[in-house]
């Protein structure tokens, strides 16, 4: 974009420094959201600069750290899909990553981007919520349950950059399902990730933020699956929009939750 400076930091500390100097800049990794919005003039106010994080080695990679799996914020979904570590420990994240766009988007989209963009429809976000992931930034860690603060708003402070996402490896089994209009290149109408033990029910595209369904979780924690399916309706706040209807989202959230909790599909 003419008029938007391109900033290419040498490393993470350089990026943090540049971001502090230029609060009007917009961090970008794979560009799958930012470049669309930039071209459409949909970022208000328009950013003065793009701060490119894509090439920063410190934001790449997948590794085990202290009983957790850590995925670099700028590691593309393709890297997650191909990672033997993620396949072994977090198959639900692989599954979620495969549902994102198609090859072109998976080659560029990142967890850091999905988090920072904070779309309620972000396909990986329920997995992060159900996994109790921890967002590591240049200055602190943020539990995922505290990360989303409003429609496309996050707990990130001024000049704060996401560095990695940590997934505690506590043996929990996550199940995932995305329901979209078509088999690829679709934004979810409903997206769920659940765990029986501990009880986690995370749902996307049904409120202004991706959310934990606390009522459903409470029932599930008591071992009351039917109660969880009944309660989830009160946990979500779906709307009618261009992609679907509130009624459909409610019904599908219940149906899919019931199916995920019974073990299939």
């Amino acid at each position: 974009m003419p008029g938007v400076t391109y900033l290419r930091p040498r490393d993470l500390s350089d990026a943090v420094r540049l971001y502090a100097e230029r609060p009007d800049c917009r961090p970008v990794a794979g560009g799958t959201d930012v470049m669309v919005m930039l071209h459409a003039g949909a970022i208000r106010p328009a950013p003065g600069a793009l701060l490119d994080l894509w090439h920063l080695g410190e934001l790449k990679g997948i590794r085990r750290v202290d009983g957790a799996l850590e995925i670099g914020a700028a590691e593309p979904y393709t890297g997650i899909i191909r990672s033997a570590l993620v396949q072994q420990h977090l198959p639900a994240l692989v599954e979620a990553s495969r549902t994102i766009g198609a090859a072109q988007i998976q080659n560029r989209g990142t967890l850091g981007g999905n988090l920072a963009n904070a779309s309620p429809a972000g396909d990986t976000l329920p997995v992060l919520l159900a996994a109790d992931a921890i967002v590591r930034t240049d200055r602190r860690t943020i539990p995922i349950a505290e990360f989303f603060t409003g429609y496309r708003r996050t707990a990130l402070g001024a000049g704060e950059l996401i560095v990695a996402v940590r997934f505690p490896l506590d043996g929990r089994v996550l199940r995932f399902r995305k329901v979209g209009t078509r088999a690829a290149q679709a934004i979810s109408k409903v997206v769920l990730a659940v765990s029986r033990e501990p009880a986690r029910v995370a749902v996307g595209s049904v409120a202004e933020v991706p959310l934990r369904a606390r009522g459903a979780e409470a029932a599930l924690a008591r071992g009351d699956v039917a109660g969880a399916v009944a309660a989830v309706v009160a946990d979500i706040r779906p709307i009618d929009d261009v992609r679907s209807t509130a009624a459909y989202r409610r019904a599908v959230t219940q149906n899919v939750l019931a199916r995920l909790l019974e073990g299939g599909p």
Partner: protein
Amino acid sequence: MTVRFTLNGSPLTVDVPGSSRLLDVLREDLHLTGTKEGCGEGECGACSVLIDGEVVNSCLVAAGQVEGREVLTIEGLAQGGELSPLQRAFIERGAAQCGICTPGMLLAAHALLQGNPRPSADEVRVALAGNLCRCTGYTKIIDAVLACRA
């Protein structure tokens, strides 16, 4: 800014705004118009190119991001004036109709075969799911890619 990268096998230096779209640099600055714009938001895949062998939508890549990378566009697929086996298969098996999705489709298929020389039909479908075609129903495209398996 000055961006140095390898384009279709040759080193290249361009002076463009780093935040401009790679798609626009290819089409408007370099007149490489084989890369098409179908939507401008990463939905149709018509602007697909390969960066370091991976297929990406060039409408979503900032020009500065190809610094030091290898970019392959449709213009670089035929080496030494010879059509690639995929290009021949696309012609012979009716995989190109109106042709507007064809460059992107070929590059997505090329990336697939580079990484997986013997894909199944389902793997081909997954690999091409980011490239919309309205003419063919995809049948002949999938056939053409399968015909090029090692």
